[in-house]
């Protein structure tokens, strides 16, 4: 997946250099979307995702009787 992101970016740069701005921009946008998807996968994956248990952003509900 990372290889595809870099492939899209490299293609965007090369195509942009050879005067095909619209195709180049489309490729750069595709690269950005794929990179965002990969980033979300990295942080939410149950196996390899990176959890940050020391940061609590949700409201913690107190246990009964607490």
């Amino acid at each position, binding site marked *: 997946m990372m290889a595809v992101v870099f492939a899209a970016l490299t293609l965007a740069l090369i195509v942009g250099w050879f005067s095909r701005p619209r195709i180049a921009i489309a490729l750069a946008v595709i690269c*950005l979307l794929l990179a965002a998807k990969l980033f979300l996968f990295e942080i939410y994956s149950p196996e390899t995702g990176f959890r940050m248990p020391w940061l609590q952003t949700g409201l913690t509900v107190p246990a009964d009787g607490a």
Partner: protein
Amino acid sequence: MNAPALTVEQRLAALLNYNFLFLMMFVIAAILTAAMTLQYAYGELPCPLCLLQRVAMFGVCFGIVQQFRHGFSYRNSGLSMLFAIFLLIVSVRQTLLDIYPRPGHEYIGSAVFGLHMPVWSILIALALMTAFAIKFLILGGDETLAKVRAESFPLLSRLAAILSVYVIALCMINFVSVVLQCGLGECHTFGYALLPK
């Protein structure tokens, strides 16, 4: 057809614009070169989030290269800024991840001037967004900037072309390197997956 006559102020604004963009691309190219030197000379393999930060920096360069090749446009500036925002999001996430060291989750790689790469990336992303904001504030999005092509300044245009080709070459090397490191799958590796051990 003759090009419209420009005042000295308009030409100066265009020159400032291209100088500003050149400087931004130069700094990013230097940072990427340093990161790749650490990777190839000191064997510090980039993690998946580090690679995404490189993607973001190349993306910022993409918008700048486009401005030199096809003239000033908000579209290219916007694309560069989107990649800068992406850089900020990824680097903040990684810094928050490593700010609390535990086994398997320490900062990866050497510290440069006391700061690790994700922390540097936050500063770089903030600097890039500030630079774009200041550029818009001072130069605005004048029609004039779009009228004057980089070729009007031969020396700067030539230097920008050399730097652009250098950035494209860096991106190609990174692409090959990523294929060797990760193959076509996920990138959780501790070595180059496709190279013999």
